[in-house]
């Protein structure tokens, strides 16, 4: 099948099978390996991307669902000159990661959270991250990072 969509602000046209998952399309065909596949069973959230503005688990979405739509991956967060997104900067400054495997999904979920709740409480952050698992169990600093990242996003907007 031929599908076309906007990927990180750029229009792409690709050919894929109907059974191709969005995560596989992004990683294998479009070579954007920042989106991680952890569990491949929609539990862990390492594969979270934004599809038409909403955070979704790309391992459990068919690639054809992106046709005519918009996809944003972790590669699309920083500015053209490499300046980190405020949420990425906050993860950096607050040591919001240990091994880093879950981080792309954490970032994509966190940015979607701030879109819905600009000034989230710790409880709201933890609830929103129910679908993002960190097996280093470094949640304390992830939550701290998101509080700081949300504040930075409010200042920036």
């Amino acid at each position, binding site marked *: *099948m031929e599908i076309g969509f906007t990927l990180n602000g750029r229009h792409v046209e690709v050919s894929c*099978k*109907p*059974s191709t*998952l969005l995560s596989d399309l992004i990683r294998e065909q479009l070579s954007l390996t920042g989106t991680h596949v952890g569990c*491949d*069973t*929609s*539990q862990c*959230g390492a594969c*979270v991307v934004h*599809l038409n503005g*909403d*955070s*979704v*688990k790309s391992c*459990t*979405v*068919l690639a*054809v*669902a992106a046709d005519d739509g918009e996809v944003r991956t972790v590669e699309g967060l920083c500015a053209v000159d490499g300046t980190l997104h405020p949420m990425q900067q906050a993860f950096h400054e607050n040591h919001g990661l240990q091994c880093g495997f879950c981080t792309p999904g954490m970032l994509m*979920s966190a940015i*979607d*959270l701030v879109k819905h709740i600009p000034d989230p409480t710790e409880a709201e952050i933890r609830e*929103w991250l*129910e*679908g*993002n698992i960190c097996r280093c169990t470094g949640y304390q600093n992830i939550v701290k990072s998101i509080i700081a990242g949300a504040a930075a996003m409010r200042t920036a907007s």
Partner: protein
Amino acid sequence: MQSFSYHKPGTVTDAASLLAARDNAALLAGGMTLLPTMKQRLAAPDDIIDLAAIRELSGITMEGEDLVIGAMTRHADVAGSDLVKEVLPALAGLASRIGDQQVRHRGTIGGSISNNDPAADYPAAILALNATIVTSQRAIAADDFFVGLFETALRPGEIVTAIRFPRAKRAAYAKFPNPASRYAIAGVFVAQTGGAVRVAVTGAAPFVFRATDVEAALSANYAVEALERLSIDTQDLMSDIHADREYRGHLVMVMARRAVAESLKRSG
């Protein structure tokens, strides 16, 4: 997953024709159950009929006194709807606690009830609120819809198009989620409509059921105290590594009391 032919009809009529013409086709709504089961080879349809392009299947409206939710309306949209929050806040609350946020951005009410997972949340609301399931062929009463483990009254080729909820005087949902999967180990939806009280239990048995003893107690006295010395028959409840049937039965009564207490704080 096994390869399949992909179809994306624009109307319910076209989707129903496609479904009727094929032996081994599956409808794709949000895909939150279908895609994982296909990845595990538990399902291997030859044809996937994607309902995503059918606009008439999405949306939340009032029709007379009923709240009508299109089958393809996502959990996040029900949870965030001002109309649902006003008319049936218990339903918005239930939707806001299904799975996780990313699942709520894809999963749909029609998909959830058509799948009839024993631990799904929506079936409890549909049954307790005495909702009507509208399909491409007919209207089905909630009491007739859920018939077994992953089984519904839907006929081959029949497509759920909307759910019609009557208003409730009081309603609330309480669930004890599995801490890992977020699926209900026991979930209880309590609804008072006029004089009648309906109580539906999910997660505890092979499929959603009405707790008639609890209903009778609450019909006589709609109060938490009415349930204090009550227990439910656990013979038909599920036992698994997460909870045995006695523990599930205990949780059902705890959730029932919590739901009644919550419902008394507000209407609908």
